[in-house]
Structure formats: structure tokens, C-alpha cells
């Protein structure tokens, strides 16, 4: 089996992640942040440990600003729906995932207006120019996809954030494909809202996500309920992280995520990126040598790309080809449209989709060679 669908969910996880999930369920599976007994406190401390490790990874001092959510989609929805009010203007890039496009589309029904910043692959200066052109005096939020989940195009978030802050506009970054893969230092780049899944590059279980609020502009909560604090008040507490963490937290998930984050810290984000992008180079070179493959980048330039790679095979339906790889070779890749319709339109793949390959820290050169061989065999069949 060769698993190359890590852009959707990393698999396998580090062994410590499985153990942590199991231990949380079996050894201290109590309710965190509600009771004072030893099991509840152990559960609370595990969650706090995860906050601390996340604060270390993203270089943010205040652990209270780290919010646990169910996934990146929930984090993005919290920022978008919690901040924007009727008649506000919002900017997003044409690389956004439906987890941004659909909340914005829904808000358009209540009078929100949006503009699209068209990114220019392999040209940060032109991307910045395009962003400047769509900012307005009533722009209340800019949403930036850090790394495209289809084509791997990386955005210069430091420069984009600096430009937006010059006009006092807060920035929300979707780092679904970059958390744990690219270095994101919140002290340096001052991103206001950082949204990420736990189950991709942070190697946590599914059902975990993180929102880091690094801004004075605090979004409204989407969900209200019990927090274990200020229980006499019927209004939602305003303190972080309680404001956004109503209901029982996903202790096993967060315990697993904690180990995933520790794994990323111990490996080093730069080393993980280097490993994965070298595999993408190998993949790109191999596919480029095959006659029927269609690639969407000329070369793998580390400055502009994250390790997410799309391709097609001439005269082959991408879904059918991915099924062949699965059925004939037990290879797992993602195919079709990757929930990013504007990105596909931009690259003229909205009619055909793509086959997407994403390595992880566990992917080997042998996996890539095995994949290339399988592509070659299935094309000629």
C-alpha cells in the first residue's frame, strides 16, 4: 500500500498519537474543565499541554488565544461569521477552499460583498499588486489561503499581512496545507486569525482543529453553552478560550493532536518541508518523463510551492485513473475537484479535475518510485 492522500488526512500517524488517544480513553477519560477530581484535572492538563505545544510551534505567548475546534472548516467559519456584519466587504484569494467560499456565499445573502484577489503563481510581487487593487475602505477582513490544496501555490502571507495591516484590515490565514509543513511565526508575521486542521500536517486525529486568535478584534461565538466557568451567567463568557469552547472538548483527539504537534516539533518543520518537497521533485521529474502526463507547474520551486502536486493523464478521466491505482496497485491518491472551484477555474481544470499527490513525513522515495511505476503501467494498459 502506498498512501499519498496526506493533503486530506495524514496517514499513518506517529505511534505516540495512537497511544495518546488510547490512553485518554482508557486511563483518564473524564470531562476536562468541569470537575476538580484527579481524572478531570489530568484531562484538563493534557488539553493545556497541547495548547502549550501549539503555542511553541506557532510562537505565540498567550495560550488562551489557542482555541480547539472540530476542524479547519469550523475555525474558518468562526472567524468569517463571527466578524463580518451586513454590508461589510471581504477579500479572499482565488485559491480558497469551499470552507471559505461557502460561508462567504451564505453571508452574501445578508448583504456581505466580496472581492477576489487573483494570485499570480511564481510571482509574489504581482500577487501583492492584485491584493492592493481589491482592498477597499470598507474591507473588514482579508482571507488568504497559505498553500493551495490543489496546485500547491504558496502565498507570501507575511507581505500580504503587512499590506493589509497598513490599511488596518485584519487577516485570516487558512493554513490547512501548511501547518506543520511551513514555519509560521506569529510574532513575526502578526497574522490575526490562523485556522488549521489537526489531522493533516499536525498528525492529530480527525475531528480536531485549531483557531489561533492573535488580534484585538474578537469574533462573535458561533456556538454558546456550558464552559465550566461563570456558570451563574446566562450569557456566554467573553474570556478566551472559553468563549469558543462550549461543550465537552474532544479529549482523545486533543491528546492525540498533542503528540502529533510534539512529533512535528521534534522533527522540525523545516526538515519535514525539505523531505516532502524533495519527494515532490522526484515525482515531478518522473511524471515529466512520461509522454501522456499533464503537469501544472514547469518546475518545483521551493520559494513558491508547498508539497501538494496535481497532474492529469491525457485522455484519461482522473477519477477512473485514481480508481485504477487503488484497485490495481493499492495506491491512495485524491482525484476530482478538490473543493476549490475557483482554483480549478483559474488553472482550467474545472471540467476535468486533477489527480493530487501529497506526501507526508512518513512517505519514502520508494513510495514515489512505486507510484511512478504504477502510473506508467496503468497508462499503458
Amino acid at each position: 500500500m502506498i498512501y499519498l492522500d496526506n493533503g486530506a488526512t495524514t496517514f499513518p500517524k506517529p505511534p505516540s498519537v495512537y497511544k495518546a488517544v488510547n490512553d485518554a480513553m482508557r486511563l483518564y477519560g473524564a470531562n476536562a474543565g468541569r470537575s476538580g477530581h484527579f481524572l478531570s484535572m489530568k484531562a484538563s492538563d493534557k488539553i493545556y499541554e497541547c495548547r502549550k505545544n501549539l503555542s511553541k510551534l506557532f510562537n505565540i505567548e498567550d495560550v488562551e488565544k489557542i482555541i480547539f475546534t472540530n476542524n479547519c472548516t469550523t475555525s474558518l467559519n468562526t472567524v468569517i461569521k463571527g466578524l463580518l456584519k451586513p454590508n461589510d466587504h471581504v477579500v479572499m484569494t482565488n485559491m480558497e477552499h469551499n470552507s471559505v467560499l461557502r460561508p462567504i456565499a451564505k453571508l452574501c445573502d445578508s448583504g456581505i460583498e466580496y472581492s477576489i484577489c487573483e494570485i499570480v503563481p511564481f510571482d509574489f510581487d504581482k500577487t501583492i499588486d492584485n491584493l492592493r487593487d481589491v482592498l477597499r475602505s470598507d474591507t473588514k477582513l482579508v482571507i488568504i489561503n497559505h498553500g493551495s490544496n490543489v496546485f500547491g501555490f504558496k502565498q507570501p502571507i507575511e507581505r500580504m499581512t503587512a499590506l493589509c495591516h497598513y490599511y488596518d484590515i485584519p487577516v485570516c490565514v487558512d493554513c490547512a496545507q501548511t501547518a506543520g509543513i511551513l514555519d509560521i511565526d506569529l510574532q513575526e508575521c502578526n497574522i490575526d486569525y490562523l485556522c488549521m486542521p489537526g489531522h493533516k500536517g499536525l498528525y492529530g486525529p480527525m475531528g480536531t482543529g485549531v483557531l489561533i486568535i492573535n488580534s484585538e478584534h474578537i469574533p462573535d461565538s458561533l456556538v454558546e453553552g456550558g464552559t465550566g466557568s461563570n456558570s451563574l451567567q446566562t450569557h456566554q463568557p467573553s474570556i478566551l478560550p472559553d468563549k469558543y469552547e462550549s461543550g465537552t472538548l474532544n479529549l482523545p483527539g486533543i491528546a492525540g493532536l498533542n503528540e502529533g504537534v510534539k512529533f512535528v516539533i521534534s522533527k522540525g518543520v523545516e526538515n519535514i518541508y525539505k523531505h516532502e518537497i524533495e519527494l515532490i521533485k522526484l515525482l515531478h521529474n518522473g511524471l515529466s518523463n512520461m509522454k501522456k502526463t499533464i503537469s501544472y507547474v514547469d518546475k518545483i520551486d521551493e520559494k513558491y510551492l508547498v508539497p501538494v502536486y496535481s497532474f492529469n493523464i491525457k485522455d484519461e478521466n482522473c477519477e477512473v485513473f485514481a480508481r485504477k491505482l487503488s484497485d490495481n496497485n493499492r495506491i491512495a491518491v485524491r482525484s476530482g475537484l478538490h473543493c476549490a472551484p475557483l482554483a480549478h477555474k483559474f488553472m482550467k481544470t474545472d471540467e476535468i479535475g486533477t489527480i493530487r499527490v501529497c506526501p507526508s513525513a512518513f512517505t519514502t522515495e520508494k513510495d514515489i518510485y512505486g507510484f511512478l511505476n504504477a502510473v506508467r503501467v496503468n497508462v499503458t494498459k
Partner: protein
Amino acid sequence: MGEKLLLMNSVTSAQKGRDILKENKIKAFIERTPKNKVNGSCGYSIYVPFNMELAKTILEGKGLKILGVVPRNSE
């Protein structure tokens, strides 16, 4: 004078405070807050057996909000 607790506004804040005090070699433990006159509500506090005033000064110096000092046993 009975034992006191530093009343914090969340379990996360209490955990952060506990860790800061431990870094400063001050023993600190998190406990549920008994019903009290400060916020009349449940929540989490830090129990500091010794050096309570110093602990309070350190935490406030670090920007942590202490809602009040309440008796460890219910009022």
C-alpha cells in the same frame, strides 16, 4: 486566618498561573472554587499554600486577571 484561593476566570488561566508560579519555585495547585461572594459561581482557582501575596504579585505582573481571593473552604 483560613486558607485562601486565588480565583481565576477559567481553567486555562488557572493552569497558566500555576505554571508561572512553579517556574518561580512557588507551590501551586488548581482546585475547583467553592461557592463564594466574589462571583458566586463555580470555576477554577489556584491554591498557594505559602507566599500567597508574592504569588498574587507575580501573576498580576504577568498580566493574569485574578478575580479575587476567596476562602478555600466555603463561605
